């Protein structure tokens, strides 16, 4: 019992130490090197946390089984890119629209540095939400695994479309040279800190929004749905409508994640949205962190991305050739094995689901218990199944 309680802080500490010490050792203990490595690492964690938050809304709270995060990710990233890029100039680069020059319509406040990005992010959320809406019609009334199979298929279908349709988004070569927000205000060397701040800000806003939404009466219906659809339906709630709303809300969050991913990378290409990288890894993050817990979703992103980064860092060490040439595959095996063992040995994840129904009810309970002391309700809860 005691050892189990230490698991979460211990894994957090181990990952933190590893991502600080390994680059420090490899860069010859240079302070700047470590700081810049850590900034890049933390920015990616913040961006990926957005996806795990979105997935948590869908699976952790609503019980909607989305195996095609890649599709929403891709729609968000490409929409954001198209909204901020200028129209294509040479005939070798072909894509539709390119709204960047039209969206900068406020003539002052240096609006070209932020206005198109706001529109791009909003459009990314709307497009991802629209995709979720369209998908929910044939699948949400059926058993949950149908949705999983459909979303996995749609993600692949969309990827095939981006590659095959030449004039749409520049096929397999992808879009490069996506502008970055507030880029002209800062020294290029310092820009990574600015973007880190932007990513953390977006994550915080979404985190608060999700926490608020989930604690609201609306969120309570979603969680009730997840626990027991029949009972929720019997209480007079429109199961289909609530499931759809949860699915769309989560998809919109993923769209925003796609947008900030595109602005961070400065380029998007179909390769990024492979089922492994763009879907599976978010599921691992959520399951490791603990589904049904937003803090767990972020912690999971941190731990899994930490493992991912560390295993790449190992490449710089003196490993036997057999392992070194296969480091990518070994890493994939590690991630695949991780999720299987987590679900077998600790299905609730590192941070178990909070059994909080409503903050009001909880205050009431605290008030009552203060009046007449009662034993604490146990924190550990049944597995997430």
């Amino acid at each position, binding site marked *: 019992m005691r050892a189990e309680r230490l698991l979460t802080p211990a894994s957090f500490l181990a990952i933190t130490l590893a991502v600080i010490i390994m680059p420090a050792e490899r860069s010859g203990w240079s302070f700047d090197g470590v700081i810049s490595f850590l900034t890049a690492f933390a920015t990616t964690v913040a961006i990926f946390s957005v996806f795990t938050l979105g997935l948590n809304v869908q699976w952790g709270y609503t019980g909607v089984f989305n195996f095609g995060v890649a599709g929403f990710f891709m729609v968000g990233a490409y929409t954001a890119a198209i909204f901020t890029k200028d129209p294509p100039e040479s005939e070798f680069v072909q894509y539709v629209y390119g709204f960047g020059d039209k969206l900068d319509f406020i003539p002052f406040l240096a609006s070209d540095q932020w206005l198109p990005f706001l529109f791009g992010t909003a459009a990314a959320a709307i497009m991802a939400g629209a995709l979720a809406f369209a998908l929910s019609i044939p699948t949400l009334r059926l058993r949950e695994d149908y949705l999983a199979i459909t979303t996995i298929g749609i993600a692949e279908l969309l990827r095939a479309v981006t590659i095959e349709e030449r004039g749409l988004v520049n096929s397999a070569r992808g879009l490069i040279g996506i502008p970055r927000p507030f880029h002209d205000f800062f020294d290029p060397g310092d820009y990574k800190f600015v973007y880190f701040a932007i990513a953390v800000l977006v994550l915080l806003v979404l985190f608060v929004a999700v926490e608020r939404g989930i604690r609201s009466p609306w969120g309570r219906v979603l969680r009730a749905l997840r626990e027991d659809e029949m009972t929720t339906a019997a209480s007079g709630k429109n199961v289909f409508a609530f499931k759809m709303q949860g699915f769309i809300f989560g998809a919109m969050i993923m769209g925003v994640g796609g947008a900030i991913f595109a602005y961070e990378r400065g380029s998007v290409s179909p390769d990024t949205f492979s089922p492994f990288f763009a879907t599976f890894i978010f599921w691992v993050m959520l399951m490791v962190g603990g589904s049904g817990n937003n803090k767990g979703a972020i912690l999971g992103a941190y731990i899994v991305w930490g493992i991912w980064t560390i295993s790449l860092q190992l490449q710089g060490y003196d490993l036997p050739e*057999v392992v070194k040439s296969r480091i990518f595959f070994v890493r994939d095996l590690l991630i695949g094995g991780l999720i299987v063992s987590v*679900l077998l040995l600790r299905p609730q994840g590192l941070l178990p689901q909070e059994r909080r129904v409503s903050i009001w009810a909880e205050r009431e309970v605290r008030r009552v218990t203060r009046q007449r002391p009662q034993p604490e309700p146990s924190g550990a809860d049944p597995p997430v199944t």
Partner: protein
Amino acid sequence: MSVLAERLTDTVGAALERFRHLRDIAAAVGIWAFIASLFLWFFLAETQLFAIGVIVGSVLALGAIGLTLIYGILKFANFAHGDTMMLGAYVAFFALTGLLAQNARQDTEIPFSLDSLPGSVEQIGPLSFGYGLILSAVVAAAVIALIVIGLDRLIYRPLRRRGSGIVIFAVVSLGLAISIRSVMMIFWGPSPRVYVTGIHPAERFDLGFTTIALKADQIFIFAVAVSLAALVYFVLFRTKLGKAMRAMADNPSLAEVSGINTDQIITWTWLIGGALVAIAGVLLALQAQLNPNLGFFLLLPLFASTILGGIGNPMGALLGGLIVGITQEVSVGIELSIAGQEILPLAPGYKFSVAVVILIFILLARPRGLLGSKSL
């Protein structure tokens, strides 16, 4: 007046209700007529691709039969099935050639493999391979069956005991899919391989209105797939084991209280499913190539075939596999324009997307599948 109207609507409503089964029959006739005319058109317009589609479809069907048995009896979507299929192909490759990847460019060979048996690579008649490959396929079927039974004992059984939901099973199987894929990459490298190198000429067949070219290997693939499907049919519908399996698919608790050893049935299900999918993998690699990345993409046509035929219905999976395989092959060759707009052929990159479109159509029109999901 209004009373009359009310009575009239009641009568009409009751009549509609009474003839409801007629409406269902009409819908079924419509769907079957649509499919039949579509495939007649496919056959007449693109006979060559239709023939290739039948071969690819029969291999898909073999994989889908295993998937649908697991889906029907264990009640979860096994996302590792496509990668298991590819692993079967690689195990056969290893048994035949004994090759393992050393690094990106070189292979190492283990001292003994089946191709060192006397005469094992000599071509059998018009086929491109010798009896070594057939032996390797049998070895692969046995090894894969053992692996999936082992994984069931180690991973799925504890989850079953705990009463985990289908989503947890699906996520675990996806984790296994990723692990199996990386194991293939680790042992045999990411680049595609083939069993037998060289060019093998196709033979021409005159059908009267057109001629088609097929390789002897392709006819072999079809023959093996069809005979294995027939064997599964025999086991399911003519043996006591099959009866128990069908009972369990229908109602696991009732099967258990009737004295059926459910654990044993689950083992048999994995054994049959694993062996079938391994042989399907070998046949697929014989028709195309060995490629560790293919496993995941195979999931889409496999699931489309399973759901198209009705989950848990092996004959449905056979039909579904053929429909998906033929549509997939023909759609990249057949020409169709509507109002001057070219719709078909599709670009080759869309081959696997065809399965997704079929899947969505069937979910909208008939989520229980063409043959219904309860007739296992």
